[in-house]
């Protein structure tokens, strides 16, 4: 297998794809947003229970490729307990990783997505869940679609 593909499908990603964390509807959710990737049909719904400005609980549901599913799964583990400002900061970091391949200074599982940057068509897959989560935080009623985002 090529180095690029090994980079893309890192062990962390494969693990989250096989055993997604926080998957399924969240019965206690007070925010939900849906994301679509119309060009490939990937879908992701993110459910939040916000406690003030803090994400008390989070889950996701949907279907898509290993990258999109693993990204959404890993995201839920990262965002739990965060404020919306912290969530946005994490997304900015994640976006930097998947678009440039630059790994963050502090050790983090999201660095596993650095390999995505050599597959530009897959960046949308990696960011789908994040877009939905940020929309849920903002309380946007509109579904996120990766097509209308610059990446």
């Amino acid at each position, binding site marked *: 297998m*090529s180095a690029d593909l090994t980079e893309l499908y890192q062990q962390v990603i*494969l693990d989250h794809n096989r055993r997604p964390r926080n998957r399924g509807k969240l019965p206690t959710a007070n925010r939900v947003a849906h994301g679509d990737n119309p060009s490939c*049909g990937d879908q992701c719904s993110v459910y939040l229970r916000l406690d003030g400005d803090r994400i008390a609980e989070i889950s996701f549901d949907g279907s*898509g*490729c290993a990258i999109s599913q693993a990204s959404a799964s890993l995201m839920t583990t990262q965002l739990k307990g965060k404020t919306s400002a912290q969530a946005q900061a994490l997304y900015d970091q994640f976006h930097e990783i998947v678009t440039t391949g630059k790994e963050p200074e502090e050790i983090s599982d999201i660095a596993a997505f650095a390999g995505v940057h050599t*597959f530009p068509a897959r960046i949308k897959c990696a960011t789908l869940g994040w877009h939905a989560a940020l929309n849920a935080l903002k309380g946007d009623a509109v579904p996120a679609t990766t097509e209308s985002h610059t990446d």
Partner: protein
Amino acid sequence: MPTWNNIRADFPILHQQVNGKPLVYLDNGATSQKPRAVIDALVHYYERDNSNVHRGLHALSMRATDAYEGARTRIATFLHAADPAEIIFTRGTTESINIVARSFATRLKAGDVILTTEMEHHSNLVPWQQAAKASGATLRYVSVLGANAEGGLDLAALDQLLTPQVKVFAFTHISNTLGTINPVAELCRRARAVGAITVIDAAQSVGHAPLDVQAIGCDYLAFSGHKMCGPTGIGVLYGRRALLEKLAPDETGGGMVVNVTYEGATWKPAPERFEAGTPNVAGAIGLGVACDYLDALDRAAIERHDHALARLAYEKLSTLPGIRLLGPTGERGGLVSFAFPDVHAHDVVTFADEDGVALRGGHHCNQPLMRKLGLTSTTRASFYVYNTAEEIDVLVASMRRTLKFFVG
């Protein structure tokens, strides 16, 4: 003259490596590759004859006009149309269908029915939804049968669906997702019996098998040049002359008018009435040359070749653990669409790409059908004249490797 023995030499693009492996191009359902003859025709046109058509009296304009109208005649012969005036040049299948659908949008009324099928590409579906919304007509669908859509269209239900209220029946010839070959002549005959106009989406069939619009008995037929060795940006709407004469223009402007005053204008007859503005001259010429190329290979032979590859691929893929193959189990068009329970189509396509194999993964512009089948995406391998049995072995080996990686 192209020959089957040396066919791959006619397609310059095939002779390259992708990710260090020889390119195995199996995405012909999306677009086909172009033979040298078509590429040369485009270059020749731009280097020697480029000019506007129908307007100039100078030598180049006459040459360009002759070549453009020659292409129209060539395509009429290719489809066995009664008259070159029945060939309207468009951008492709999508525009062709939209022209017809928009004309119905202004003519239909509440109570009228538009009939289509559950296996249509979005481009033969959404325009009809729009026409129904605009006119108040009802949109109905012929069902697709079987958990894997292996049963094709529910023809038994057709008599019930084809009521006199049905004004138009639009259906695909070969499904781009399933490979199903619809009995188009029978569908046209049954539609005609209730006075419905028929519209065939022939995007996946025209370049793959002999086709005779008069024998089929359709009213309209749409296709794209780029899926049949022709250039992108050129396609055809075939319409029966008697209907085209009654059809109002879709776009208006230069080239399609007879007499213009400040108050109004009168229209030229078909086909010019439907070709406002400067057309895709080079594209039309290239498409004519693509017709020559395919006929030299013999379309009956192309059909045998594509179908044999699809059958072989179907058989070999069916040995893979867990695979779900869609569409007919017997005779099928030149493509195979499949899904694995534990590996998403995009991951499959990414892995195949590493092996140099170009596949399509996704919903194939067929979201409602995917939903009905309980899928969000499939992987599709689609074949054409230059594909070989050895390439199917490369495909199957690549699928095995992918399954091993994701499933173990």
